[in-house]
């Protein structure tokens, strides 16, 4: 989640502005910030670091946060007017998109903000907003990229042309002093290396040129040095380019409201060419039923209560037409263009809750109409836990996403090709890269981490293991031909390490565990077997015999192999530097019928 640091002093000033003299204190501000959905990460009384949700990029600046605080604190409510002057109705378009960009990055929009003052602080806030929009809404500048320009420095003036130029096109990019070709910019600048790939693969690159043919911007990579915004800039031209008109206009509206609230006046610019249009920056009307809001929230708000809640969220409920008569509880609400997060009625219900004040919503507990029940697997697991803990075992918890070293290399198996394991793609840590197909390798690894602890050591684990190939989970609604590529099973494994450990102990503990977890109408058989974890001649295949109908429809007296028991191969122990012998078992639980009640 994005984080921004704000100064209380500035917030106080911004929130109190236009409040008719009411001065809002920093205590009031810090108390209300969380109720806007802003998490306070750090607060030293002068500065506050807040984390905001990715759906509210308008909170990336203190002016944006102040608009919301004004509403919640009741200083100024209702809509934030953009007052964007319309373009001359018959005037020529001031930005024209050429056909050449259609296949590369077709969308352009923009706005002019004039007569503001940009101090160092505001400049930094704008950059933060821009970066946040690039990252979230802009999907790393792929969908949307924003350029801010000092309008007075566009030397060739308007109209601007949005077109495509060749890789040999030259200009001085931002933060450089010499002219560079586009190829040089992509290879030789930080921005070029980071974003060049977004337009690579085309022979020509999107560029914004001014009336004199000077380069204004090379979206989405970098602006030109010519139009750099600095402290003291009074007129800002904002361009937004991208592949989605929706997203571009949303981003533009958020930058526009921020500049407006920072004291700039807005002028819309005529835009044409391709499917581009002059940005409408229009409010949308979304109706919300107060009855529905009350039903969802559990409140008893009147229509006018709800309307005032919406106003506290800087929205514009349209006054009810009383002549319409009756008990119409639907409020048509005007939503400004900088709130693209509001799409439907439930979003407005949330706004009503926010405007009402979450701290005022009291919890209410009503009795349950249903009776609770445990999952059958949990009941079995409890029985297994009781049995093993009773025998002195300590439960271990290992990750299901383990690694080839623990599962194969150290467990006496050759590491199979990737097609035989279940690997995670591009894991950030090698430690978590392969799904486990058994529990015992993890437990033996755990012993190796505890060689300095007192012996005897007895560990167990119950958990999911993963196997390639479909095996439908019980109760799944899957059709047979739609089987999942991975099947999951529940296993239990235990290991004991001490000087007298051995096969007999392992088998004996296993018998008790299965006795506790499984119907006592079943019997366990062990037959000699080979297994990579266990020493040859000290390993058994474990089967369970269902004697009666306890198997839930399984054939009577049928033998099911459920796992292995034995003495851990001394070679495995010595590779782990474990100096005492160890023995244990691992069995699969889904094949085990549940204990008779």
């Amino acid at each position: 989640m994005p984080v921004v640091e704000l100064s209380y002093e500035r917030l106080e000033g911004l929130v109190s502005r236009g409040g008719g003299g009411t001065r809002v204190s920093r205590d009031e501000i810090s108390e209300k910030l969380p109720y806007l959905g802003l998490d306070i990460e750090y607060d030293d009384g002068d500065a506050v670091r807040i984390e905001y949700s990715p759906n509210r990029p308008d909170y990336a600046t203190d002016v944006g946060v102040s608009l919301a605080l004004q509403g919640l604190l009741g200083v100024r409510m209702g809509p934030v007017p953009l007052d964007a002057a319309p373009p001359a109705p018959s005037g020529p378009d001031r930005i024209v998109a050429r056909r050449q960009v259609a296949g590369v990055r077709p969308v352009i929009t923009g706005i002019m903000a004039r007569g503001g003052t940009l101090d160092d602080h505001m400049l930094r806030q704008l950059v933060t907003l821009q970066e946040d929009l690039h990252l979230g809404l802009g999907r790393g500048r792929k969908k949307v990229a924003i350029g801010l320009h000092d309008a007075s420095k566009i030397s060739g003036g308007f109209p601007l042309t949005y077109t495509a130029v060749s890789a040999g096109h030259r200009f001085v990019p931002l933060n450089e002093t010499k002219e560079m070709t586009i190829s040089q910019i992509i290879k030789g600048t930080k921005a070029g290396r980071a974003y060049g790939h977004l337009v690579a693969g085309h022979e020509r690159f999107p560029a914004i040129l001014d009336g004199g043919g000077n380069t204004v911007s090379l979206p989405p990579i970098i602006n030109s040095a010519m139009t750099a915004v600095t402290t003291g800039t009074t007129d800002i031209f904002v361009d937004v380019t991208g592949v989605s008109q929706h997203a571009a206009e949303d981003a533009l509206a958020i930058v526009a409201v921020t500049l407006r609230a920072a004291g700039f006046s807005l002028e819309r610019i005529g835009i044409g060419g391709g499917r581009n249009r002059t940005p409408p920056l229009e409010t949308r009307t979304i109706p919300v039923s107060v009855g529905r809001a009350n039903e969802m929230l559990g409140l008893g708000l009147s229509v006018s209560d709800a309307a005032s809640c919406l106003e506290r969220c800087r929205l514009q409920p349209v006054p009810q037409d009383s002549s319409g008569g009756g008990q119409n509880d639907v409020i048509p609400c005007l939503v400004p263009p900088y709130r693209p997060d509001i799409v439907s009625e439930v979003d407005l219900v949330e706004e009503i809750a926010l405007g009402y004040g979450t701290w005022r919503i009291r919890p209410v507990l009503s009795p349950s109409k249903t009776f609770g029940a445990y999952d059958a697997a949990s009941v079995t697991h409890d029985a297994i836990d009781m049995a093993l803990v009773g025998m002195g075992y300590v439960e271990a918890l290992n990750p299901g996403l383990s690694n080839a070293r623990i599962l194969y290399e150290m467990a006496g198996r050759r590491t199979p090709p990737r097609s035989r394991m279940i690997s995670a793609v591009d894991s950030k840590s090698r430690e978590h890269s392969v799904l486990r197909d058994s529990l015992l390798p993890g437990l033996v690894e755990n012993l190796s981490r505890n060689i300095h602890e007192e012996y005897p050591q007895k560990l167990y684990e119950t958990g999911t293991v993963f196997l390639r190939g479909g095996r439908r989970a019980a109760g799944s609604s899957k059709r047979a031909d739609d089987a999942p590529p991975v099947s999951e099973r529940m296993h239990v494994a235990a290991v004991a390490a001490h000087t007298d450990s051995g096969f007999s102990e392992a088998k004996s503990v296993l018998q008790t565990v299965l006795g506790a977890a499984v119907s006592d109408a079943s019997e366990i058989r062990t037959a000699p077997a080979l297994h990579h974890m266990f020493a040859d001649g000290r390993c058994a295949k474990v089967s369970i015999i269902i004697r009666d109908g306890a198997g839930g429809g399984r054939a009577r007296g049928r033998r099911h192999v459920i796992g292995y028991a034995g003495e851990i191969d001394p070679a495995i122990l010595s590779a782990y530097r474990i100096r005492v012998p160890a023995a244990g078992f691992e069995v699969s639980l889904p094949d085990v019928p549940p204990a008779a009640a």
Partner: protein
Amino acid sequence: MPEMVLHIIEKKIISSLRSEPHQSLGRLAGSAGLSLDQARRGVEWLRHKGLAEVSESEETAISLGKNGMRLPHTMLPERQLLDMLLKGGPQEMPVLQDNMGPLFGVAMGIVKRNGWAATRSEKGRIVVSAAPPKDIPGMLPGEATMRALAGAEGGPISAESVDPSDLESLLRRPELVTKTVTKTKHVSLSEAAGSVDASFDEGREGGAKAGAIDVGADVPAAPRGRRHPLKEVISEIREIFVTMGFSEVSGSVVQPCFWNFDALLTPQDHPSREMQDTFYLDVAPGGLDSTPAHTRRISKAHRDTWHQKWDAAEAGRMVLRTHTTCVTLRRLLQSPDALGDARIFSLGRVFRNEKTSYKHLAEFTQVEGVVHEAGSTIRGLMGIQAEFYRRLGLPKVRFWPTFFPYTEPSFQSMVYNERLGKWVELFGMGIFHPHVTRGLKHPVLAWGGGVERIAMLKYGVDDVREFYANNLGLLRGMRRRDDA
């Protein structure tokens, strides 16, 4: 010196040490008529009382290694070869090879290097013959040690009982013999023990007075079995849910993107779906496991909400679930009683492709509850939350608004922690977006979050990785705090 009450075991040890002053622990057990464990405990008590002294000595033992055990008659392969040559005269190489099997190569190398045998070519065949007997030592290097080991059925025998250079020549060869160092404890009486009365009456052993023991003495800790502390918290949470009317459900860890993301309206180009945040599996895509009608609804909701095309192939990629919402939601939408009242919950592992740190794990446990019944409200949801936390021993709760892509409105619960002196973020909650639960009769309340966070408060743990470190000392010692 003050009178000291001694246990019968201690008296037996003292008497034995008075007749033989310096004994190994094992010998002492035998001579005092005690089990090894009794002797060990008795010595430990005496040591605490300053009556006995324990010293440790190291002994190196050798025994046959993996390859040594495979040798026929524990005979060095070079000796075997020489025997054949000395008894049977010069022989062709393939014949020898057949007789000796895989050991021939090793044997041949050694005898040639030492000049104990030579090869020559005869009509295209290679013939091996032994050197004159006077040029072959009676005892080959290492042979004396091998014989000693053979005599002791492979060992272990003391390393001091064999010639060091003889042994060294064997240790250089792979796994013929292995060397183990064992430490032996030797017990002797301290000076203070001289004046102690160690007399005991065999007939009254265990009796009232003579058998009286020092009940104030230190004893070793009895090892305790234990469920994992995190599992204890998980069980507690499970219990609370069930007593509040919820039924537990479980589901797959591996899910198609469809249920993990698309069904929850996460846009297909959303950053959280990228590989940096989600574990995609290197397996073929599975089916969506959805009904055609539901798939159509979701596809349309994506187009309407996010203004972009919805790709069914993307929805079929398999991931490790990033939350348990997919499990509860599937159960609601797929269970035949979907239209009745239902309170269900699920507990299980979830995964995020993150670097682990003291507050983040790549794999952790989540609990998730949903309520589908008439008249569900946010206030009711807050009530369930507050009651849940109260039962967990976390009475100070409040709610802040927040954002989740699939609930509207959304809140997060905060609980106050005395030890940390601050509000701690716990579960997220809200009402599922209507797109997510279309087809159900009522709006669905949902909430959930990580269990480890609660366990951290309960045990006063500040590094979440401790729960998966499987450190026995920690697992045995972790205690609940009452200021959680």
